[in-house]
């Protein structure tokens, strides 16, 4: 799992180096992590499930053995995190 927070001060980490696995070329700079990559592992798993179930919260609730409103509330929390991150 890609680390997204600084282990020392808990601030958001940035990408400073990318490397081509084929030729070894390295690209250096300061790049923001993509929005979805900034979510926690659990939240990313939730988004993956959401996409895989074609956005059906009912299907997700059955898979996760949770009630429909609980799954909808989890989605609302992720939406809120993304909105906060975008500001």
């Amino acid at each position: 799992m890609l680390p997204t927070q600084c282990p020392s001060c808990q601030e958001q980490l940035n990408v400073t180096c990318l490397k081509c696995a084929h030729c070894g070329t390295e690209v250096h700079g300061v790049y923001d992590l993509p929005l979805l990559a900034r979510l926690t592992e659990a939240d990313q798993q939730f988004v993956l499930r959401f996409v895989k179930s074609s956005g059906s919260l009912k299907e997700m609730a059955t898979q996760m053995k949770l009630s429909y409103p609980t799954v909808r509330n989890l989605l609302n929390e992720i939406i809120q995190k993304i909105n906060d991150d975008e500001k």
Partner: protein
Amino acid sequence: MKSNLSWSSLFNPFTRIAGWQAFFPGLVGILAMSIIGSYSGIVFDGVIDVHFSNVDVLTALQYMGFSMLALILVFWLVALLLSKGFRLIDLLGTLTLSKAPYLLLAIAGFFAEAPDAQMIISNPGILLESTAFLVVTAITIPITIWSVALMYHAFSISCDLKGSRATVAFIVALIMAEALSKVFIHYFV
């Protein structure tokens, strides 16, 4: 871990069940407690009201029906005002199931009988002589707290409301629902 899960399920089963899944067992519960209560001398004449009283089955069902109507109506209106999105069936199902603990009191009514009101007025000490009555009266408190805790979680999860906003809205809604249930029962039963 397992016992923690059981305790949390006891006070907040709504993370796992809601909607029709909660409504059907809840409906069976409120019908059973009304019918059993009419035979055991316990009446549920309000959103969180329990009294020793002998009423027929039809009246007991009417009390329950109007109490539930008041509860659902008020919480639905509060949810419309405060929630960004909710399903009525989740609110209906979870709130109906929240009344389930009162079934224990309907059954407990078989083991106790309230002393006659006239006798209590002439000799209040008679209450202390009726141990079964005192025990049933005492267990009313934790059971009511349990049911109210369930109602809070039902409201909070169904409407996605948390924190002090949810707590204040819940308290206000519960008081309004209790008052409305008394109005309904007074005028329609």
